[in-house]
Structures are given as C-alpha cells and as structure tokens.
C-alpha cells in the first residue's frame, strides 16, 4: 500500500515536471511559428532582396519601400561598439575580481556588479539621455544621439553578463594549473595572464556571446539614445544617429497596419535569426569545450 502510494506520487510528479519542461519548448515553438508564419509571407511579398539588401525604409510613402539593410547594419555597429567598450572593461574586472581583489573590496564590487544586472533598461535609457548624450555632444561634437552614446550604454549593460560568467570560469580553472606555473618560477601576473586566463578561454567566449545577445536584443535603452534615424549605409558615422532592428519595431509597431505591420514582424524574424546564430555558436563552443 505504502509503495503503491509512493509510486503513484512518483508518476504524478513526473508528469508535472515533464509538463513544465514541455511548456518552455511549446513557448519557443509557438513564438517561432508565429514569427515565421506572419513574417515569411511579408518577406516574400516585399521580396527577399528588397527587404534585406535595400536601405530605403519608407513605409508611409506611396509607393512604400521596406528595406531594413540600414537597421541590420545599425544593429551590427551597436553590438560591435558595445563589445569594444564592454569586453575589455568586463574582462579586466573579472580578472581583478577572481585573482587580485582583496576581500573587503570584493564585498563592494561584487554586489555592485549584481546590482548593475538588475537595473531596468528604461533606467539605463534615461541615464543615457540625460548624462551620456550631453557628455558625447560636448566632448565629441554632433548632437549626442549617436552610435557612440548607444554603444557606451550597451557596453555598460553587458558588463554584468561578461563579468560574472568570466569570473566564475576563471575561478573554475584547477588550482594545479597555477601551482604548476608558480613551480616553474612564473610570477603571479605571468601565471594569471598566460596560464589561468587562457585556460578559461571558452567560458570567457561564452560570456561575450551572451553579452552580444543582450546587446542585439536591447530595445528600450537604445531607443532613447540612438536617435532612431534611418541612415543610408554610406552616411553612417559614429557621431550620427542610427536605427536598429529592435528600435524599428518598437517605434513603429503601435500604429502600423497591413504590410507595414507584417514587415515589422519580418524585422523580428531577422532579429530571431541573429539570436539563433548566436545560440548555435554558443553550443558549438560548449561542445568543443567538453571534447577537450
């Protein structure tokens, strides 16, 4: 009786857990299905080449044009900018935290990093609009709403991701590596930079890719500092405004109808493909790491 009861419980609980696992799969499938079912017809109606490789975006013009090349390039630029700013700072911070940081400093820096991760993106946007934009305008010229401002904000936003994952992967390097290095007479700095950090390479790479994922998908903060102008490719400059895939969707979604609306969903499809590529490369890195 007792065992039958516990068997029964087992089956019920198994079913519940399985269902929970299933829900996330269903959610992903439903979202992809929605995106592709609504997006693909729009892309084929606009024409794949006209959609992806055309830099003219004028959905309210007659005849309308729906080219998102400028926004694809915009997203790539901003992500690149975020990496240039965020990765060196994040990586150095992670190395510092894992290897050189005294305990009492660690107690301040680590919670600060965690807090940085919890700040809502609208706050980042507000901070960017009130502080970074005037700063860029006064220091570098232009009107401040620019690739540079957005990159700085995104660079700060990806810091927590890069710092915490890199830090834990540096900490995960076996103690024997460092001991071996000290054993052959290397200094602390040589050990850290030539032995420990290279050994944590795949974890660091993972953190960068996750950071890229955050930067590509960020919307609210970018929409407030990037200026949202659709720029022809040859006029893109670091101090000029830019529109990304995400901000294109968010600024225009509320009123769009008909083909315009579907073209925004199609913009989402392109964004989705970006994210899939990132995730695939992430799992490639992980599986490579496991084989080693």
């Amino acid at each position, binding site marked *: 009786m007792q065992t039958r009861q516990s068997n029964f419980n087992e089956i019920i609980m198994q079913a519940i857990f399985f269902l929970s696992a299933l829900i996330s799969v269903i959610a992903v499938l439903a979202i992809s299905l929605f995106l592709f079912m609504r997006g693909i017809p729009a892309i084929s109606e606009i024409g794949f080449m006209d959609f992806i490789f055309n830099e003219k975006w*004028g*959905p*309210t*013009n*007659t*005849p309308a044009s729906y080219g998102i090349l400028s926004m694809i390039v915009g997203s790539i630029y901003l992500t690149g900018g975020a990496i240039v700013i965020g990765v060196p700072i994040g990586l150095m911070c992670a190395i510092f935290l894992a290897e*050189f*940081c*005294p305990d009492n*400093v660690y107690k*301040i820096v680590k919670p600060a990093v965690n807090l940085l991760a919890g700040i809502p993106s609208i706050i980042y946007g507000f901070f960017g*609009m*009130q*502080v*970074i*934009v*005037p*700063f860029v*305008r*006064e*220091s570098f010229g232009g*009107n*401040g*709403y620019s690739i540079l401002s957005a990159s700085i904000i995104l660079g700060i936003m990806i810091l927590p991701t890069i710092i915490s994952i890199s830090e834990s992967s540096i900490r995960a390097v076996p103690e024997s590596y460092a001991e071996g290095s000290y054993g052959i007479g290397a200094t602390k700095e040589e050990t850290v930079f030539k032995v420990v950090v290279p050994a944590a390479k795949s974890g660091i790479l993972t953190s960068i890719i996750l950071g890229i994922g955050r930067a590509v998908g960020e919307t609210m903060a970018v*929409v*407030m500092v990037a*200026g*949202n*102008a*659709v*720029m*022809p490719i040859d*006029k893109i400059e670091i101090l*000029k*405004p830019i*529109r990304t895939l995400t901000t294109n969707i*968010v*600024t*225009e979604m*509320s*009123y*769009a*109808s008909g083909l315009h609306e579907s073209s925004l969903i199609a913009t989402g499809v392109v964004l989705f493909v970006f994210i899939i590529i990132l995730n695939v490369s992430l799992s490639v890195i992980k599986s490579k790491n496991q084989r080693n």
Partner: protein
Amino acid sequence: MKKSRILSIIAVALMLMIVFAGCTQETTEADFDFDKDITVVARDAASGTRGAFHEIMDIIVKENNTEVDKLVVGALEFDGTDKVVTAVEGDKYGIGYISLGSVSERIKALAVDGAEPSVENVKSGAYSVSRPFLLVTKGTENELIKDFLKFTESVEGQAITNEMNFIGVADSPEEYTASGMSGTIKVAGSTSVAPLMEKLQEAYNELNPDVTFETQAQGSSQGIKAAIDGSYDIGMASRELKDEEAEELNRYVLAIDGIAVIVNNENPISDLAADDITNIYIGEITKWNAVK
C-alpha cells in the same frame, strides 16, 4: 591593501567626474554659435503630430499618386512629445515640434511667419500650423459613451479645453448635468490628445464617480486602429482621418490644436518663416546662420 584602497578611490572619483561632466556641461552657457548644425528632431511615423505637421509644412510631397516623406536624413525620431521636449531642451541647436498645449518654459515656441503661436492666432487663422483633435468611435455608441461625448461638447468640457490652450469648437455648448452612469470607457490613441483627455476624464469623474477610464496613449494611428477593431471604445487622433478610416468610424472634433515649433531656450531666434522651417526639415537648410 593600501594600494587597492587608493586605486578604488581614484576609480570612484573618475566615475563621478564623468557623471558630473555630463551634467554640468549641459548647463554651462556659451554664446549661441550660428555655424553649428541644426539638430532636427521629428516624431515617429506613428504620431498624429508628425502626420499633421509634415503635411501642413509640405515635408510630405505628393505628386501623381506618389507620396514621399522628405524628412532629412539623420533627423532624430522620438516616440513621444516628452522625449522631443527633452531632446530640444538638452540641445542648444535643436528644433522640434509639439502640440501647442504641451508648450512649457522648458523650451521656446517660435512664431511662424510673424504670428505668435497663441490660441487667438490659431483661432483667427493667422498662425497656420494647426490641426484638429478628433475622437472616433465605431458603430452606434452605448449610452455611457454618448454621455461622455456629450460632456466633452458641453460648456464644462469646452472650458477645460480652452484652459489647456486648445481651441474648443462646439457651436452652442449646453450645460452638462451628471447622469449617474457607471461602467468603463476604454480610450486609446494620440499622445497629444491624452493630456486634454485626462483632464476631461477627471472632471467627468467628479460628476459621475462610478465611471472608470482605461486610457492608453501610443499615437493616433494606434487609437484609430483600436477603434476600428473594437478593442477600445474611443480612439483619439491628432490628425485627419484617411478615407478608408473615415468610412468605418464616427468622427467628433474635440478641439483645434496649434502645433508649436520649438527650439532651445538659449536660441536667440524667435521667429521663422514657414518656408525656412520646411527647408530645415527637408535638409535644404542645415545651419542656423541661414535663417538668422
């Protein structure tokens, strides 16, 4: 240990310096440099203000069945009146446009062709940049919505409209008496109409406390769309309806609104010709000295 403490103090000081640099440089006053590029600020394509302004100022060019918005490349686009104000307030060389009712001392509203943007001038037609505020509904309204619409056209409603610097248009407004109705009215649409709508709702609520309002302001086109598909009872629009929209909806003129052309408070210019404004927005004029 000591070294790291000094290091962290330096780091914190550096960060604060950057923040303060961003804040203070914004407010340091220097002479207005007419050779600087004009920062053109526009609304997103969702906006009724944009639709109306671009049409009135001939920024949208219509010729034999084509319709092209000639907004200059690199113009900033924001999805809300408040963001336009913030952008122009923060940028000495900025120019933007907002509803007359939203003008505050944070920015300066320009005279157009010598006519000050005042209620009298809009009413008399001397100030040419104006557009209607519309409320739209679909099909036959229920008693509650009829009652609310009656209130907006009453003496009380018109008084609120005029108080907000909009121009009431009801020919012979009647006194409104509380109906004691209850229920929910869902309103969506233009961010320019929303402040007026809010005041009207407050006053209506005082008379009929059992009525609740759900209001969402995401742009005229969203409001029109929401009224057409029935997800909201009343749509707010700050532009004229398109033919296909007008066919499906009942149209009520809530008020007439001027669109103010705004510049930074430090900008010495206080009057612009309509042609110059058009030329600034289509990129024919890029520097302030061309309109001095």
